[in-house]
């Protein structure tokens, strides 16, 4: 396991409004990390900085040793909060798009997963349910052989059965030299797949620890700790 992402004293403002304040963290390859926090706590901004989509920040961000840019984008498979697939695409065309765009896209793998989840590659994206659309998107993103997967709310609008299916997709497809960062505010049934969790609240990191350490030292599950930290 090596350090693949390192962030030191990151700060991000929108105008005069600070959304990230003194964020420092490291992520190691071979791990699955949960980025947890209530809505509007800065999770998406933090992920966008790592993905190289937000450039006007202060502090140091290193992706595999380099600042975010063209080189780092090739290492990162990013699932945005909102879809960027054209609604008029058929699922098959979305696969074509990924194949053209990303040299590390494994089409065979994607097609197998389409079959496994009974998705029709000829169906138009816009005629799919929200859950199906999210599955298509996650399958595409996880079919890249990337070193870094940044998944922003991949479990958003899914029922528990689909959530389990999504977690299986993630567990089955990340490789041991890659890191998976999953942001979510629905932690109830996902904490068992994380190596560690980072809880963000009020622009800062409040907790950064392994799941088993939290259980051992605090005598609480991550869900219980989350509820305590973010008590309204």
């Amino acid at each position, binding site marked *: 396991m090596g350090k693949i992402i390192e962030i030191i004293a990151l700060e991000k403002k929108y105008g005069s409004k600070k959304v990230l304040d003194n964020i420092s963290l490291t992520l190691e390859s071979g791990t699955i990390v949960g980025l947890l926090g209530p809505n509007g706590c800065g999770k998406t901004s933090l992920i966008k900085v790592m993905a190289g989509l937000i450039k006007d920040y202060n502090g140091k961000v290193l992706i595999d040793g380099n600042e975010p840019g063209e080189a780092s984008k090739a290492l990162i498979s990013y699932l945005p909060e909102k879809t960027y697939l054209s609604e008029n695409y058929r699922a098959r065309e979305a696969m074509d798009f990924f194949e053209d765009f990303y040299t590390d896209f494994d089409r065979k793998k994607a097609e197998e997963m389409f079959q496994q989840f009974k998705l029709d590659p000829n169906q138009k994206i816009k005629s799919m349910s929200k859950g199906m659309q999210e599955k298509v998107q996650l399958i595409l993103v996880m079919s890249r052989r990337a070193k870094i997967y940044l998944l922003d709310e991949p479990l958003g609008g899914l029922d528990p059965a689909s959530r389990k299916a999504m977690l299986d997709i993630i567990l089955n497809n990340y490789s041991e030299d890659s890191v998976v960062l999953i942001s979510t505010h629905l932690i109830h049934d996902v904490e068992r797949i994380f190596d560690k969790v980072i809880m963000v609240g009020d622009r800062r990191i409040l907790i950064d620890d392994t799941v088993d350490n939290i259980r051992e030292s605090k005598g609480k*599950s991550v869900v219980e700790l989350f509820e305590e930290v973010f008590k309204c």
Partner: protein
Amino acid sequence: MANDFSSNVPIYIQIMNDVKLKIVAGVWEPGQRLQSVRDLAVEFSVNPNTMQRALAELERDGLLYTERTSGRYVAQDHQKILKARSEMARQYTDNYYDAMEKLGYKRDEVIYIVTNKLDLIKGEGSNG
């Protein structure tokens, strides 16, 4: 598989117990080759590192062993498996007795309830 992970016990220890149960109950037979860590991780819905840690601990306990080239297997040492089984039985018994004590039951009442239960099972068995 739906797993209920109680909150203050590290997940790898809970996985160890689940796997141990499969071994001592013979669901996984002595000498049987295990699936890959990743497949097991998916089956138990846990992180592969957690699964790896649980399996490594069970290997240390002698319930599993690794052949360098071909993978991980269930131990063939029946003595060890029996010992693990009676340890688990003692643990379950302790837990049960503690819970009954908390409910305010006395020794004799516990014996009565257990005996009743056993008779009930016996009755069901002979009917079936």
